[in-house]
Structures are given as structure tokens and as C-alpha cells.
């Protein structure tokens, strides 16, 4: 019998992210939501994943409940394999040891370029200013596969980002290599609160792969300011599972400071 699940858009993005990674891989974890994704995936799906934080924590295994804000603190860098510093952390990624990277974004464009610096106006005189790269630029440059997590809002999917904070495929096929970025790297998936995108192997354009159960591809696409490519077969993403939600709500973020968000429902 079909059962309706209730969850937040954030919970859905986290659950999707956690299902993406392979076991036995390394994961360069950005600040905030990617940290929660890493914890959930490791608890539930891929125990043998080593995380890396840009502050120099290699292989951290955060304590639960998750403590927000302080990526460099004892809770989040708990039981690391190694504590180093930032220049070493980026040596791990630059030399090819980081398989996946995960980043949030303000804006993303069809080539997976990320803006997290400003919106409106110019760089010198922006209308709204945000945190900027942090280590995002390095993560998106060095990791073999970068995953972007972004809320599914129209204004976030633009034909061209106002500022490339972290590089996607830039202007298309070959552009990363031409710019000097490491070969065969680039955006791998874009996880949104409604759908999952990949990138076309040939054209490097963002491609709709899957949508949340109960949503149509058209609904997903009409909210975007550019029209993505659409996979021949768009698959269905099941909503957060009971295990995912229980872990998130009971063990990882019981105060719901991070997993709160817009309410959504779907059929389990």
C-alpha cells in the first residue's frame, strides 16, 4: 500500500547526495550540507569512504549529533587518520587522490560552473555579496568528480553564472584542459531539491537524469532559467527512506538546524 512520506527539501538533497558515492573512494567535503551528506552516506551506504576537509583533517569521522559551524573543531575532525594543514590538504587533491568533491552553490549554469560570490551588479559593486570560494575553487579544480548541491529554484539555474567561483566545464568541451585544469575532472552531478542532473559526455551540458517520484521532467525544467538536456530515459528518485530520515532526524541533526527547510511530500 502506498504510503506518503513527509520530508524537507534539504533532507531530500542530503539523501540523494548520500546515495551517489561509491564505497572505497575519497571524498573532499565542503562546508555545511556536504558534511551531513558525508556522515549519512558513511553510516548507511559506504563505510569505507575517507573524507578530507580543507583545514587539514584526513579521514575524519564526525561525532553525532553533528555540530554545526566548526568544521575544524574536535567533533567534526574526530578520529581522523591524520591532522595536517591546508596546503597539505590541497596536495592530496591536486595529486589526484580525491575522487569526489561536493559543494553548495548560489548559481549554476549549463556547464556546471558555480557562482558563490555575488549576485547582481559587478564584482567591485555587487548588489548582494556572499561568502565566495573558500576552498570550493580548489575542490572543483582538483577532484575527479564534483557534485553540486543546490536548491531547485529558478533563479539559481542561469544560462551563464555572473561569476565563475568554481569551474565547471567553463565554455564547453575541452575548455577545462585548455585553461590548464587537471585532465578528466569536472562536474559529475547536480543534486537539487527536485531532481538529479549529470553532464552530457560529448557536449558537457547539464542533463536531467532523474526526478523525484511524483514530479514530471517538465515541472523540473520549467523552473530553470535555461533548458537543460534531458536524458533519453528520465528515471525516478525515491524520496528519503525511513532509514535516511531516522538517521538524519534522530542521530545526525536532532535539533533540525540543518535539515529544516521547505516541506515536501512523496509516495514512498
Amino acid at each position, binding site marked *: 500500500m502506498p504510503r506518503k512520506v513527509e520530508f524537507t527539501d534539504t533532507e531530500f538533497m542530503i539523501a540523494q547526495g548520500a546515495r551517489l558515492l561509491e564505497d572505497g573512494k575519497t571524498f573532499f567535503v565542503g*562546508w555545511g550540507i556536504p558534511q551531513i551528506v558525508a556522515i549519512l552516506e558513511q553510516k548507511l551506504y559506504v563505510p569505507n569512504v575517507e573524507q578530507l*576537509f*580543507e*583545514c*587539514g*583533517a584526513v579521514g575524519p569521522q564526525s*561525532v553525532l549529533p553533528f555540530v554545526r*559551524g*566548526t*568544521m*575544524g*573543531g*574536535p*567533533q567534526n*575532525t*574526530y*578520529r*581522523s587518520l591524520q*591532522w*595536517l*594543514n*591546508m*596546503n597539505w590538504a*590541497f596536495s592530496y587533491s*591536486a595529486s589526484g587522490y580525491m575522487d569526489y568533491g561536493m559543494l553548495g552553490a548560489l548559481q549554476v549554469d549549463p556547464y556546471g560552473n558555480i557562482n558563490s*560570490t555575488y549576485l547582481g*551588479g559587478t*564584482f*567591485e*559593486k*555587487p*548588489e*548582494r*555579496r*556572499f*561568502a*565566495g*570560494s*573558500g*576552498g*570550493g*575553487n*580548489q575542490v572543483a*579544480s*582538483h577532484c575527479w568528480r564534483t557534485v553540486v548541491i543546490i536548491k531547485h529554484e529558478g533563479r539559481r539555474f542561469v544560462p551563464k553564472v555572473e*561569476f*565563475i*567561483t*568554481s*569551474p565547471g566545464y*567553463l565554455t564547453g568541451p575541452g*575548455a*577545462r584542459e*585548455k*585553461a*590548464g*585544469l*587537471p585532465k578528466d575532472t569536472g562536474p559529475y552531478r547536480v543534486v537539487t531539491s527536485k531532481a538529479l542532473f549529470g553532464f552530457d559526455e560529448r557536449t558537457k551540458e547539464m542533463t536531467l537524469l532523474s526526478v523525484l517520484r511524483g514530479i514530471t521532467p517538465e515541472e523540473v525544467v520549467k523552473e530553470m532559467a535555461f533548458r537543460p538536456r534531458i536524458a533519453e530515459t528520465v528515471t525516478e528518485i525515491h524520496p528519503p527512506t525511513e532509514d535516511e530520515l531516522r538517521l538524519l532526524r534522530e542521530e545526525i541533526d536532532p535539533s533540525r538546524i540543518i535539515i529544516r527547510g521547505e516541506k515536501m511530500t512523496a509516495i514512498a
Partner: protein
Amino acid sequence: MEYRFEHPDEFRAFVRDRKSRKPFDKICTAKEAVSRFVADGDYIVYDFSSLTRGPQSLIREVIRQKKKDLWIGAEFTLHESALLTGAGCATRIDVGFLGYGNYIGQAVCDGRVKVYEWTNGGLALRILAGARGVPFLPTRDLLGSDNLSVSAAKVIPDPYTGLPVCLVPALNPDVAFLHVHQADIHGDARIFGTNLFALEAALASRRVIVSAEEIVEPDEFRKDPMRTTIPYFLVDAVVHAPFGAYPGAMPARYEIDLEHVDRLNGIRNDDQMRKYLDENIYSVADHEEFLDKRVGARRMKELRRKASITEGYR
């Protein structure tokens, strides 16, 4: 694009002429350290973030002394960029991660402070270049991004492969602030846990102010050389500053005061900023008075108790 740069030979000459290699007693108050070693117009760099082992008592002293026209290099600047800007001390910021709260974002939009993008990796690499005495270091990031176009980073073809490679210029700050777990009176210092670029910043900066939770005997360092983060001869002043990272956390010593941090996050306009600065900085003579009158022993005890994870921090 404007950037801070010093010819490596000039920096070397400063190190030769102005940095003492003698182990003498460098203990002083934050007031003395900041008035002696921080000048208007200086470039300041510091290790870690507002929430983790940041040199918050030194930052507050800079504000108290109303330093002007500072340029700060900050990886994870959450609150100090807002406070230093709101207090009229900082006019330029190299980032990093310009986190959060509306105040600093609005100040950038209003043109009250200029922000230069180097990214965390780029800034850490610039400081490493400064520490290694070379004018630049190469990297395979920044490339293709707009951070490159709004910075003074340059792209050259690598002479070995022909690949375009990004070069970032060395950064040699005027002053580095480092808040540490332990120091001795000469300046030898230990940090436990990860750091961003503590030794790099100490080597690359003209002046180094260490503030320490605890002062230990100099002999401790020679008994355990693998644990020394900074040797004394890089350091100019040592400030004994228990709770120096407050309201942030000192790993394995005390936790974040989330309530105080929320107050900081809530600052949205100049009125609120002025009120915060008055209450927490201008109206108290120093860090000790701040702790007594604005934090209190009960709160400190509670934050100490919360720091229950100590494994590995030694």
C-alpha cells in the same frame, strides 16, 4: 588588481635586521603587543576561523585601539571581518571565505570595504610562498575561474609541459596573530589539532604575536620537538590569553558560546554594530575585564565542560 606584495629581498632584510634570535622574555599584555606591533595601514593575517582557535582577544584589542586602514588576509572570516569593518579598522580584505551575516555583505556592496578574492587555497599558497622566500608559487587551480581575473594571479605556460599554470604572488604580511594552546615566555608555541598555515604565517610575516591559553616552561619544547608548531625566534610578543578564542572554541579546551555567536550573527546595521562594539569592546579595558564582566566564570566553566573531546589534542 591591487595586491599586497613585498620583494623577497626586502622581507629578508627585515628578518636579518629586525628579528631577534635571542630567547628573551616576550610576555606582555595584548594592549602592549598590539600597540607596539600593529600600525595603521598594516596587513594582518591570522590562523583558523572565528569559531575555531581564532585570535579573538587580539582582534578585539585591535578594535579597542582603533587601528585604521588595515588589510586583512582571512581564510574563514565569519565575524572579525564584520567587526573590524564595522569599527572602521579594516578597509581591505583578502579572502578566503567571507562568511556570514548580512553586515559584512552589505558593507561590501556599499563599498565600505574592498574584498579581494584569492580563494582559501590561493591564500594559503601565497603565504607558503612568503614563508619559502620565493616570489610566487604555481598551482593548477584558479585557472578558468573569475577569481583568477579579479586577482593578481598570473598564468604562464609551464616550461616543462607547456601547460598553462597559475602563479600566485608571495604574501608577506606585516603581522600574524596566532592563538595557540601552549607557549613559553620566549615564543615557542604549540597548536594541537589541524591548522591552516600557522608555521607558514609565522615565517612569512614581519611580526608575529602569539596569544596562548597556557604558558609552559621553555624546556618542555626541547623535550618534545615534534610537537613544536612555532620556534621562539619567529615570535615578537607572547600574550597569555585564556579564553582568547572566545566566543569561538579552543579545541579540547572550551567550546563555542553559541549564544554569543548568535548575537554576532544578528548584527545587521550600524546601530546594532555600535551597540555590540560598545558593550563588548570599548566599554571594557581589556580581555580580562571582558571575561569578568561580559562572559563570567559560570559561563566559562560551562564552555570548558562542554569540550569533552580531548583525544589526540596533546
